[in-house]
């Protein structure tokens, strides 16, 4: 089991709750104070450097036009950390390939970072969450098609070393694709792809031997996703190396009481407001799901989660907090409930959680929790042994 430190790099110093029409897409930048913001950028980068020193890996992501995430260009952060860290693997999860619209540029950026870090880069690729559609203006009805065309083009660009090839796809046309530099890792860095309950897509991720990642989902749903991934890996007779990743909110402290306080601050992330039109752009989900939405199936779901509170989130495995032994038990429980997984992506900072308490939680995790879970078998390795 590999553990990864993550923060969305929030800018929480904006009006909270209903005082704001939206935390995303339309939030005016006059609410951003560059003095506070520049401190935050540097602080979050410091925390990633500390993660490296503690023996944790680093996960980065990007979002646009939002106070929930100052990292609007994850490759920039990854490039800085490629120089400032020594051992950590760095995973951008991910490059919003459908929204960026230029897969070759992503191939180049990732190849450069892979070289600077001397092969410590994992390249996540994401379809992009619904509200991201508006900043990017990409067609909401075909983000998955864009994602896969882009991934296939990037991989070809990374692995072609005998001069140019041409590409005339549905979304991208190039007459002479010839990416310099080639990646440091051969044949190319590991690709990660995120998803939720679109099983066809999970199977596609598995059949290509890529890592599948999912965020903040209850264990019963994740079990089904990971089962779909595992059975496809087995069907294709693929060797180990890829695997599955899950992200909960994680807070570790010396006392249960202190941990609960920290965990509560992490849930800030779940209360950030987005108006309805940005939550479900037209055609982002299929007709069947939209029929249920019209019938009112999803209204008030967030409110329900809020009302059920921390215990509920903890039971689902979305929120893990407590003393080191307790956190280790919660991770092992989740591991068992979902049939095992390979990467624990930990959102260990959110909202107003300050530097001191963030680092205290990270440190306690690295020193007292990580040793208890590090040897949980990687799914594929276990399978290979079982078969032998």
């Amino acid at each position, binding site marked *: 089991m590999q553990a990864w430190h993550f923060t969305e790099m929030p800018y929480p110093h904006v009006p909270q709750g209903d005082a704001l029409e939206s935390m995303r897409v339309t939030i005016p930048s006059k609410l951003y104070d560059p003095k506070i913001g520049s401190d935050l950028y540097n602080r979050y980068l410091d925390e990633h450097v500390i993660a490296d020193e503690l023996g944790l890996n680093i996960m980065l992501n990007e979002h646009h036009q939002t106070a929930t995430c100052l990292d609007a260009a994850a490759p920039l952060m990854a490039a800085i950390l490629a120089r400032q860290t020594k051992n950590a693997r760095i995973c951008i999860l991910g490059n919003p390939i459908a929204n960026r619209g230029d897969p070759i540029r992503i191939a180049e950026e990732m190849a450069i970072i892979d070289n600077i870090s001397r092969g410590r880069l994992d390249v996540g690729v994401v379809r992009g969450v619904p509200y991201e559609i508006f900043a990017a203006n990409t*067609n909401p009805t*075909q983000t998955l098609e864009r994602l896969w065309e882009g991934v296939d083009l990037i991989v070809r660009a990374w692995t072609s070393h005998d001069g140019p090839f041409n590409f005339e796809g549905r979304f991208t046309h190039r007459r002479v694709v010839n990416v310099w530099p080639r990646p440091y890792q051969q044949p190319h860095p590991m690709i990660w792809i995120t998803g939720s309950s679109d099983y066809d897509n999970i199977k596609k991720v598995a059949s290509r031997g890529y890592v599948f990642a999912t965020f903040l989902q209850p264990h019963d749903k994740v079990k089904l996703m990971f089962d779909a991934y595992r059975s496809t890996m087995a069907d294709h007779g693929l060797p180990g190396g890829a695997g599955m990743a899950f992200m909960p909110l994680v807070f570790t402290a010396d006392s249960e009481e202190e941990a609960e306080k920290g965990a509560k601050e992490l849930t800030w992330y779940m209360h950030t407001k987005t108006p309805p*039109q940005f939550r479900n752009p*037209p055609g982002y989900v299929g*007709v069947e799901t*939209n029929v249920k939405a*019209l*019938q009112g199936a999803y209204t008030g779901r967030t409110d329900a989660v809020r009302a059920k509170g921390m215990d509920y989130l903890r039971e689902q495995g979305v929120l893990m907090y407590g003393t080191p032994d307790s956190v280790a038990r919660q991770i092992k429980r989740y591991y068992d409930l979902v049939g095992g997984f390979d990467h624990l992506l930990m959102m260990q900072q959110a909202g107003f959680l300050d530097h001191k308490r963030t680092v205290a939680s990270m440190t306690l995790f690295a020193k007292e929790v990580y040793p208890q879970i590090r040897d949980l078998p990687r799914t594929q390795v276990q399978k290979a042994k079982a078969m032998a």
Partner: protein
Amino acid sequence: MLTTDQRKTLIHVSGMDIELERRGRGQPLLLLYGEEGLEPDAPFIDELAKDFELFIPSPPGFGHSERPEWLSNIDDIAYVYLDLVEKLALKNSPVVGFSFGGWLAAEIATKDDSFISRLVLVGAYGIKAGGPFDRDIADFWSLHPSEVLKLKWHDPEKGKRDFPSMPEEKLAIVARNVESLARFCWEPFMHNPKLKRRLHRIKMPTRLIWGEHDGIVTPAYGKAYADAIPGATLQVIPGAGHFPQLEQPETFMAALREFLR
């Protein structure tokens, strides 16, 4: 194959099944409904069917019409409809289009207007009237739904729809229409940058009918549209928003009859 009610048939054209509803008797009239598909169920259609045989196709991806993957914009749909018109052997027909259907009617007319006797565009999208920083067409996809309702309807109460009590089959069409509209019209948003430069090709008598309080495409937008079509006239209907045919059906029908007479 998709099921369809008795007045409707599926016609195979341009390699896809297109749903076609036929109603009434008299001179043929091609009616192109708007993106929400509200017109075929509206009372004014029954009035119109007393004087005309109405041909009401569903665009690819709307109603029960197929939406092949290769279709990407309204230009493609216009060519499918020209094949349909040929198959139905429509001649000397008025064409009446509402909103998205109005845009489609304008696209068709710029490509081949030989079968059209008169053209009526009601609250039509399709052109970019202003500059890059102008929001010519209200962005109903990034505004709050309650705000969109106010822009669309002079009386927003009339626009409220009770989705939870609708049958699932109907909701599936609502959801599918929204998805298809986004597929074809997300970017450029509800217009074809080339259309304005092609409208001069429309030679038959053309009437644009607009709701005075249309907040999605304003009467000023309607005027810019009319100015680009030789000899076209704009008629503004008071007490109506984006759907004068639904909010003021009597005034609308009087205007339509007067023009089609």
